[in-house]
């Protein structure tokens, strides 16, 4: 279980998170929605420790993850439980596609032999809808949507128990988006993983989510099961899910 309590983060005068409270139960799929620039990516990065919150507490299974002075080994063990798909893919452009996907598999204490890791990488690529030929290309040779899917394959390659997806379907065609939605759902249901997904795509929300949280104005504006999303009277949520230009959310931000 992941809990965030009263998490604040500002970049200079830009107060991005202003007291976020959120709980994600193990084995469930949480989807974060919210306008662009509201701090959704910052929220995920805070949990991983890539961004250090100014105040507040984040715990994983009851343990404070923001605590300072953790040894390298503790931090490795912590991070080994996570996989993350970055919004921009964040592929290593000096490495081939399969080396990106297998990055964690060929390193560390449980490193596997290269040929085996390559096989596994190709299998993961197939699951995100990429042909085996893609494996030997460099990331710069792929389209944006393909890079995104390679990033997804890398995030799930080591079968982590907690996976963060930052806009997994942005830039994909509707069919590929459907494939990815199904894959994320499958990972949660079959592998029992905990997932946190950021998306703007309402069909993704409905396909992936157990629970939904809306981030607005630096706080969680609304959270609840996806079944209650449509019925909630919250004007912010209503405006967002119906994509209306007028409502309480300003269109100039």
């Amino acid at each position, binding site marked *: 279980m992941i809990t965030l309590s009263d998490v604040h983060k500002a970049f200079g005068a830009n107060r991005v998170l202003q007291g976020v409270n959120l709980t994600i139960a193990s084995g469930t799929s949480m989807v974060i929605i919210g306008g662009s620039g509201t701090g959704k990516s910052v929220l995920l*990065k805070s949990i*991983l*420790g*890539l961004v250090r919150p100014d105040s507040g507490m984040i715990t994983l299974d009851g343990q404070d993850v923001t605590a300072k002075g953790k040894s*390298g080994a503790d931090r*490795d063990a912590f*991070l*080994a439980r*996570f*996989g*993350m798909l*970055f*919004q*921009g893919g*964040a*592929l*290593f*452009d*000096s490495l081939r596609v399969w080396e990106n996907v297998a*990055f*964690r598999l060929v*390193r*560390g204490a449980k490193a596997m032999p290269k040929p085996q890791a390559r096989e596994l990488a190709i299998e993961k690529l197939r699951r995100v809808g990429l042909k085996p030929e893609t494996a030997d290309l460099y990331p710069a040779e792929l389209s944006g949507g393909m890079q995104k899917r390679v990033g997804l394959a*890398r995030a799930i390659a080591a079968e982590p128990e907690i996976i963060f997806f930052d806009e997994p379907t942005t830039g994909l065609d509707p069919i590929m988006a459907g494939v990815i939605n199904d894959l994320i759902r499958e990972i949660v249901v079959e592998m029992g993983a905990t997932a946190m997904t950021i998306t703007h795509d309402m069909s993704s929300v409905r396909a992936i989510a157990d629970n939904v949280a809306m981030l607005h104005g630096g706080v969680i504006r609304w959270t609840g099961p996806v079944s209650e999303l449509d019925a909630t009277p919250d004007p912010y949520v209503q405006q967002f899910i119906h994509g209306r230009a007028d409502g309480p959310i300003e269109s100039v931000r």
Partner: protein
Amino acid sequence: MIAGTLGAIGRPALQALAAIGRLGLFAGTVIGHILRPPFYLREFGVALLQIGWFSLPVVGLTAIFTGGALALQIYAGGARFNAEAVVPSIVAIGMARELGPVLGGLMVAARVASSIAAEIGTMKVTEQIDALVTLSTNPLKYLVVPRVVAATLSMPVLVATGDAIGIMGGWLVGITRLDFNSATYLKNTVDFLEAWDVGSGLFKGAAFGFIVALMGCYHGMNSARGAQGVGAATKSAVVSASVLILAANYILTELFFTS
């Protein structure tokens, strides 16, 4: 008024001190990681190739022209007091002690500090550094240590090569443009060159290599966001590496050659 003036002096001074502190801390952390596993041998090999091998042409060209010009100048200067015969030994000493390491270092700074800063800076702004962390890989160990070690080890070799090519440049000019006898030129070079002339230059080379890679990595890792951030990081890396090389050269020369 006085407070304003003091502030105008104090603020930049404090900022400079803070920058030196951050840099010192970064250097210390990097050195601390050098001997502790995991070691990334493949990254080290690539860095050796990029920093050492591919810098050979630049360093060689710099050295040959410098050696040649040096021979002409010393010949002309020496002629004023009938000391043209010192050309071979002064060219050799000048190349080995000063010009080999300093010019080699500056050329490598332009070539390597910039490319390291641009590469690591781009990785930073495209979240590749964050991605490394989430894949349980320490960016300092994976990106910085291989480059710093490769630069520190390959610079002395580059300097030695540059010394040899520079001396050859002087010899070429000596026997073609000035009327030196080839055998005498070489004999004079060898007779008056001491081991420490060369050794001190190699030592300087190692220090300059460390500075170049460290500056490239430091500014890349601290790059601001966007293309502009990477551009600024690259510029800062080259400027700071060059200035630090010249400053370190003075300090090392004081240490080595004054008693």
